[in-house]
């Protein structure tokens, strides 16, 4: 369809890929657009940052799944759900996550905690089919989500995490 390429740059992801794949000729200063190169570098590093942290966290979850230690082991369903969530979170959210705060509960769920200090805390719990989380501000819970499907609650979770980390 002839109309499609006209609208493609309106999509930020398509635009991003187009810039990332664009070949920059550094030898020819006449074609060097600084803004374009900056944008390309930013996209490049953000992409790798996201990929590296996400891979690291996925490896940790996979280690739990493979573990022979009953205190650490998680099920296939929890593993799948954890991967889905890690892939669904923005790079800035993953970047601010301390890998030490990835833990498992005694009943087999996975927990990710973002801790600003002892009284400001975001705790996300990933179960086999549902997620839950609470946000503590100045030692008091300002929000508790008991049990929701990640697919339907993803946007709200990302929004809440974004607000907390802001």
């Amino acid at each position, binding site marked *: 369809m002839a109309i499609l390429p006209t609208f493609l740059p309106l999509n930020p992801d398509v635009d991003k890929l187009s810039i990332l794949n664009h070949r920059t000729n550094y030898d020819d200063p006449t074609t060097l657009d600084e803004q374009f190169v900056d944008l390309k570098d930013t996209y490049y590093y953000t992409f790798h940052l996201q990929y590296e942290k996400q891979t690291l966290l996925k490896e940790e979850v996979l280690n739990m799944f493979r573990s022979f230690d009953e*205190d650490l082991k998680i*099920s296939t*369903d*929890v593993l799948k759900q954890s991967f889905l969530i890690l892939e669904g979170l923005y790079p800035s959210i993953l970047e601010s996550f301390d890998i*030490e*705060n990835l*833990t498992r*509960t*005694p*009943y*087999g*769920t996975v*927990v990710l*905690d973002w801790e600003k200090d*002892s009284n400001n*805390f975001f*705790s996300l*719990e*990933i*179960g*086999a*089919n*549902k*997620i*839950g*989380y*609470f946000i*503590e501000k100045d*030692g*008091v*819970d*300002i929000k*508790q*989500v*008991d*049990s929701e499907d990640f697919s339907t609650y993803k946007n709200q979770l990302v929004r809440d995490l974004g607000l907390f980390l802001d």
Partner: protein
Amino acid sequence: MSIRLPKEISDEEILAHYLFDRSFARKVIEEKKLINKDVFLPNKGGVSLQRTSYCDENMCKSLATRILPDRKFVGFFCFRKLDFLKVKSEYVKSRPEFSAEIKSTPLNENFEYILENVEEVCLDDLGNPAHANLIYLNPAIVGDESPNTAIRSFSRKLSKVCKILIDINPYPDAYLGKKILDVFG
């Protein structure tokens, strides 16, 4: 003459929860590595506690190593019942339906619960007469691999008023760490 244990736990009583290595991130036994929000999470039923007025540190450790020989005992997490009540009354302001209680739940020589309406329990009874349970009534813990948001959040808040006592003796013979009464004054 044997001392009879009151069924009612007084507000001033200090309760101890066993700490095993699994309560620490990557099983590194350091206070800052304690996964404090998950300490008071029951695997099923209630969270086991010891009434320290009727069970000293050595007796508590001996019971822990006998009941759960496959776990590595590393110390205690202690609080007064009064602190539990204060945390609970604060917590219900943000979660009004929340309900939890601490009950005396003595165990017989086979470490099974002694029925509430049975005979009185004495200090030198076999088993674990000083056992108590923290029970989450509403919401109760839900089945395996499901989130328990309210309980985890409460557990975190309760852990903030607790004092940690680490046992530096890796062998099961005696407890070597701070004394509970010294810590609570």
